[in-house]
């Protein structure tokens, strides 16, 4: 009888472990600390650029209104301002110096990707921004089904999915929406746009 009870106990423990793993991976998105911000080569504060100095998203993420990926800016884009501006304090100056060094030595900055979609999903930034900033479409809905103000600008469109990046010093995957399939589908249904599988899955 005793070996049987031990075996039963082991099975219970294993099943409990599996259950906990499944619960964590379902409810915390992304699971196991993957939602934390990856370490970046340069401590870039969105707060200073967006919230304080009102630079529009598409000024640096240039491709966002033109193509599939939003893209991180080239070093030249940073130098557009930072050849003159060198930050207010010592830490900022040190970070900006890294950008200038990268420009002078022709080395790209290895930014770490924060938002990552699976390989089998196609997402085109340009199409979504074009939809939300279109004057001709009468009513547009946000992620949770709320009606958006008439014709949001590009920056407001970005916050629909990415959250209030402008007021975050460090951008995490969790800053905005979870980017799960349900999020996409809810918004597509609210806005009465196609939900065929092949629209997003490739």
């Amino acid at each position, binding site marked *: 009888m005793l070996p049987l009870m031990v075996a039963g106990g082991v099975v219970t423990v294993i099943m409990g472990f599996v259950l906990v793993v499944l619960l964590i991976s379902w409810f915390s998105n992304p699971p196991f600390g993957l939602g934390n911000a990856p370490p970046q080569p340069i401590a870039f504060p969105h707060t200073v650029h967006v919230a304080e100095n009102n630079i529009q998203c598409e000024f640096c993420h240039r491709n966002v209104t033109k193509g599939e990926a939003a893209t991180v800016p080239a070093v030249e884009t940073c130098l557009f301002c930072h050849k003159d501006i060198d930050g207010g304090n010592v830490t900022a100056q040190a970070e900006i110096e890294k950008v200038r060094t990268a420009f002078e030595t022709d080395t790209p900055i290895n930014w770490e990707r924060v938002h990552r979609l699976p*390989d*089998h999903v*196609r997402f085109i930034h340009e199409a979504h921004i074009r939809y939300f900033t*279109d004057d001709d479409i009468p009513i547009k809905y946000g992620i949770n089904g709320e009606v958006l103000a008439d014709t949001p600008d590009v920056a407001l469109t970005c916050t629909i999915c990415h959250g209030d990046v402008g007021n975050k010093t460090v951008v995490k995957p969790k800053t905005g929406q979870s980017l799960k399939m349900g999020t996409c589908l809810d918004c597509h249904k609210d806005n009465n746009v196609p939900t065929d599988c*092949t629209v997003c899955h*490739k």
Partner: protein
Amino acid sequence: MVTKRTEHKWGMVVDLDRCTGCQACVVACQAENNIPINTKDYFQQRRAYEWIRIERYWEGEFPNVKARFIPILCQHCENAPCEPVCPVFATYHNDEGLNVQIYNRCIGTRYCSVNCPYSVRMFNYWQPNWPDRFRNQLNPDVTVRTRGIMEKCTFCVQRLRRGEVNVERRGLEPLTGERITGEKKLNYRQMKEGNYLPACVQSCPTNALQFSDQHDETGPVKERFDEANEQIETRHHGGHVDESHTRVYRLFEEVGTKPNVIYLKKVDSFPLEKA
């Protein structure tokens, strides 16, 4: 209510009189859709796969012999036998007449391939593997499918989606060139022939493969599909179709799958003498 995407119904016509069996379509498909390289080993195990294949038949006895070629791809059947047997709904018919396979939903039961009369559903037996120098050649619009799932011809649906975005981005009517405005923009996803061609059709040097919307008056396939549908109607009502006067046929028409691919018979000016 979800917007009906389009009024499209895609169809292909394969003219066997023009097909020379050159395999350009096979290579184009292989490159477009990230299909792994089939080695001799795979063929010997009968596990090599191609989404479109050229079947070769010999007619007559040596030395009086003729080679016949017929390209076989997914027929995108209206009554697809593969669809009802899938336990996880990984394959379904979308409203554009395409038989769609969703790879990340597929669990690899292979019921669909058993039920397919055309043997065009391919099972991925191995983790796909390319030589390093081929890595940058992969098409970013198509997933690299993992081992253990079914895959098949999609009529290059990734090209359709890319074409749609391009049409919408330009915001012009494809036929008249007028700018699309107002609410029409929401429902406007009309494509015309040329905006969207599958890789095999684009690569065919003799135009043996032709592709367009079945309803498109200016497209190359409407006439043939009308003819084929007429034949089906006639047969359905017990009429007789004179087969010597028509080149149109569908593969395994008697099975009742209603394929969206139509074949045109070979016209042989010098038939073999019957011994």
